[in-house]
């Protein structure tokens, strides 16, 4: 399991808070405590060997898990694509006997090779693609964890909304 950064946790908690507010408002008063426990990591539960036998999970926990799983998946896949694209460009440059200087940062290199309009298009396209991938991932994770299809859609909307430009 990959360790999440604080920034990613903040992002997930922010999205989950918004989802809880919309989908499970009765859990809102306890959101901070639950999020703190979630951030502290997974610990085994006491008394589970003689427990009721059926897990009862808060929607808050469920949302946090769903979003964390989806975000993790999208970031890893997205990061992988980006890294592969950069690696291809580097290989192409070296094949034309135009090796990049070690000091030149990749961003500068990219900017020098592509016109500004294309970069903007790429960013917009990538953002749209990311949202789409994130939406699908959230839906998939949510259904896997036991939410209904409708709940999964609502959760996906809430997550996309929370991660959008107008999000806090």
């Amino acid at each position, binding site marked *: 399991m990959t360790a999440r950064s604080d920034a990613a946790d903040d992002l997930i908690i922010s999205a989950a808070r918004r989802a809880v507010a919309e989908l499970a408002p*009765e859990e809102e008063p306890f959101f901070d405590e639950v999020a703190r*426990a979630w951030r502290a990591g997974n610990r085994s539960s006491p*008394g589970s*060997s*003689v*427990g*009721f036998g*059926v897990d009862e999970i808060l929607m808050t926990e469920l949302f946090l898990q769903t979003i964390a799983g989806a975000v993790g998946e999208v970031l890893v896949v997205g990061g992988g694509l980006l890294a592969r694209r950069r690696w291809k460009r580097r290989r192409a440059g070296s094949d034309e006997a135009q090796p990049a200087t070690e000091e030149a940062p990749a961003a500068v290199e990219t900017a020098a090779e592509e016109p500004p309009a294309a970069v903007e298009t790429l960013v917009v396209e990538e953002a749209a693609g990311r949202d789409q991938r994130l939406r699908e991932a959230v839906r998939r994770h949510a259904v896997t964890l036991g939410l209904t299809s409708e709940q999964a859609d609502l959760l996906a909307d809430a997550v996309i909304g929370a991660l959008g430009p107008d999000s806090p």
Partner: protein
Amino acid sequence: MTSPDRPRATSLGWVYVLLGGAVVIIGATAGRVFYSGTDANLAGSIAIDRCHRRFPLPESVNDWNEPQVRALFRCAVDATRTSQLTVLTVTLLVVAAIGMLTVLLPMADRWRLRGQFGRYRVPAAEAAFGRLREEHGLAGRRQPTLLVAGPPVRQAFTTALPGGVPLVVLPLAVALRADHERFAATVRHEFGHIAARDIRWVAALRGLSLGAVPIMLLVVASRYAAGLRGYAADLGLLARTTLVALGVALLAAALLRRREHEADRYAVATGGEAALLAALAAPTPPSRWRPFARHPSATDRIRAVHTPVGVTEGGFVHALVAGVVAASVANTIDQVFIFTGMYVTDVPIVVSSAVALVLTGALLPSLIRLAAHPGSAGSAPDSAERVAMRTWWRPVAGAAVGLVLGGYLWPSHPQDLRTGFLNVPGWEGAARSTLALSLAGAAVAGILALLSEVMAGVDARWRDVTGAAHPGRRWLAATAAIAGVCAGASLLFAVDALHGAADGADAVTRGLKLTRDSWILLGLALPIALAVLLRARRVPEGLPRPPVRGVRAVFWAAVCTGGAAVVAHSTLLYFTLDHVRWLKLGVERVWLAALTALAVVLIVGRRSGSTGLARAVVSGVAAGTAIGAAHLGAELAAGRRPSVFLLQATIAASVVFTLVLILLLMPLLLKLAQPAGRGAEAPAGREGSAGREGSAGREVEAPAGQGAEGPAGRDAGRDAERVGAEPAEPAGSGPGQVAEQRPAGESRSAGRRGVATLVAGGVIAAAVLPALIHATPTANVRAAVPSPPPVTPSVAEPLSPGVKDPGRVIEPGDGRRIVAAARDVLPGHWVSEPVVEGHRDEPRETADPPACEGLANDDFVDRWGMTRRGEFSGSYHTKDEGGAVVNSSLIVTLTTAAEPLPARAKADAVETVAKCPAWSTPGGNARTGPIEVRVTPGGEPGLGEQSWSVRYTMQDNLLSGSFIDVWVIVGHNVVRLRYTAIEEPIDPALLGGALLRTMTAMTI
């Protein structure tokens, strides 16, 4: 106080009785493994063997000598104190460790919950929890408190520190739905655990399910690390130990699952069915391998809500498991005292009591519930006709099979099926042991079934008349439990004493010996308890009881008939002043008393339900006592001196025989007491316990309109309706009161029939019994009274001059006779092997230095140039029951040659011996190391110039011993006696006697 209409949680006390048994098994087995193979173990074995040498047990029970046996016991008990202390200490440590878990696990739970206290407050949940708590009547020490816990707690559970109140932990997700039925279902499930009073003990179950295997492996590993050797090094022990641990782990896991099923049923019974089933229908992760799963699967739980799965309480499997655990506990205790079991006279009663305790604890509460609420104790509602006395065969058969299975589950010596409790070793003995075990299990379960029926009947009677339970219900239940343990222990003790009998005569002898043991009188607890329970049936507000004419008539007829028969037998018919004959005749009188008493039981108890049977048992024992008293009076009147023995031989013997007969026949009596009309024709309706107590039998045959009016009479009619018979007329003061409810004419008629049967039975018994008992050998009867100690055989008789030349060529017939002659001088604890004819080439022994191989293999004999005409060998050794460490053997070898032996024979031998003062030879295994042999000077036998002896000492890492070779050459013959003694000195008198006998035999 719970309200009458509130469902009661099924107590799982029987589960914890089985748990206690399992802990004892684990602890004692661990202790035994820990002790095995130690130096102390070896020293103890040697000490016990030496005790046997000093105080040899008689060959036959007829030669039993009390002072000598007691001396042996004292000697052996001292020798095995270390063994007992070691095993008991480890047992206590394991029990303490398991006990500590009941404290540590809840503390660990609390510690892990420490961050949850006060963090999540949900007022609505707290209010709903409080309402449910009141609704379920949980107060005082059972009043639970609530803790709402956030992540990572996702399952509700209940925990409790010792002495504290239960703490119900609810996940926040459940608490936030306090208005939801799921909340109530979850809380009700947890309340089911609290109501069953199993919160604190469940920690021990958790620990046992996890710790049994590691504990045993740890103990075995510690022994191996410490250089385990001998018995404990066997793979068999490791396998058996692991089997015990796995069995206990399986049992603990099964009991944990059972606990959840019971809590589910409680939740459903209190109104949470739909929500519970909905919760269980949610997808759950697959559990571990089923037999070791500590939680039942959701599928099993849904099915078990209405249909019992696994063990049905009070059913065949339940009793079988109880029987297995009881027999295993018995074997374990027996093995704790494995070295002293036969030396401490009280061990059989300890073992018997343990079995009775486990069976009573594990079965009686369930059987009482089954008798009181047949539909709720594990039976499906649509099978309620399978209740009451005719279904007692299930626990009876279960206990019988369970004791047999448990008895042979882990035999101490699998090769000859040697186990502990009620065992006769060997394959033939296994058949008898199986019979004894099954008979004992069935009888104990039968006793418990009778107590359960009567106990449930008391409750039902009070509820029918007053609408409330008997105020002293707990005390009555305790009385029944004590009676169950005492009567069970008494019965098992009797079976233990009787089952090894070789034949009928031996059984009579053992039975007589039994009457001198007061432990058997523990069985009196059963009639006393039944009398108490019968008395408790009398409801103050009930109608006055009419006299019990039928029972009294039969009782007095039996006492008069039996008493008169015994008195006449004792005075007019067979008066004697010969002590042995008097003892023999006494057996007949005691049997007369016991059989008359049994007839009372059969007549009074037949087909009149549990109350009738209870009354019959009380009456029967009273009749046996009264007839015994008449016997005593007759003996005193005949001029015999009053003594404790006279009291034992008359009253005590009559009571004991009566008790043994009644207890052994209890399953049959239960069957006979089954009321008529109960069975296939009974409807599926729920049958009340009152109805089972006689209302459906002859009562329903009573003509209409003959009963008294009144509330109790209406109860009887209702009871009859319950069992589906023809509508019964009110029959007096209630169900179960068969004799007192029946119209006077019918009662008198029954009494007359009973008296007639009794008199006829008495006449037949008086005619047949003496013939049977006179077949008992007088010698067996002697066993009942002390006899003088057995005489040790004299060592030797003077050598008389022979008429034949001992130096002649010995013919085969003479040769066999000569080597067998030494048998006559050997003590009783020696046994002889068949004579072997012909030369045997033994495997050659290696020696270091190699020069000593000649002496080690008697090579000098080859230098004599004998042409063997014949060789004969007689072997004798001390008894080796159970693998005695201390042992001796004697081998007499006679070789006859075609020509006279050379004159230099002795010189050759002496020369060989002189060349080799010491050598070593490979030992049995790496642990024992090589055997160091050293030659020491031997004495001269004094049987001519061609006789000599050589003495050797032996020593390895474990044992020491010595052997002596005596050689005598006469003409054509060479006689060699080799006497070997391990861990004991050579007995020169025995060797001398054997030599003289052998040499004398050569001259005859």
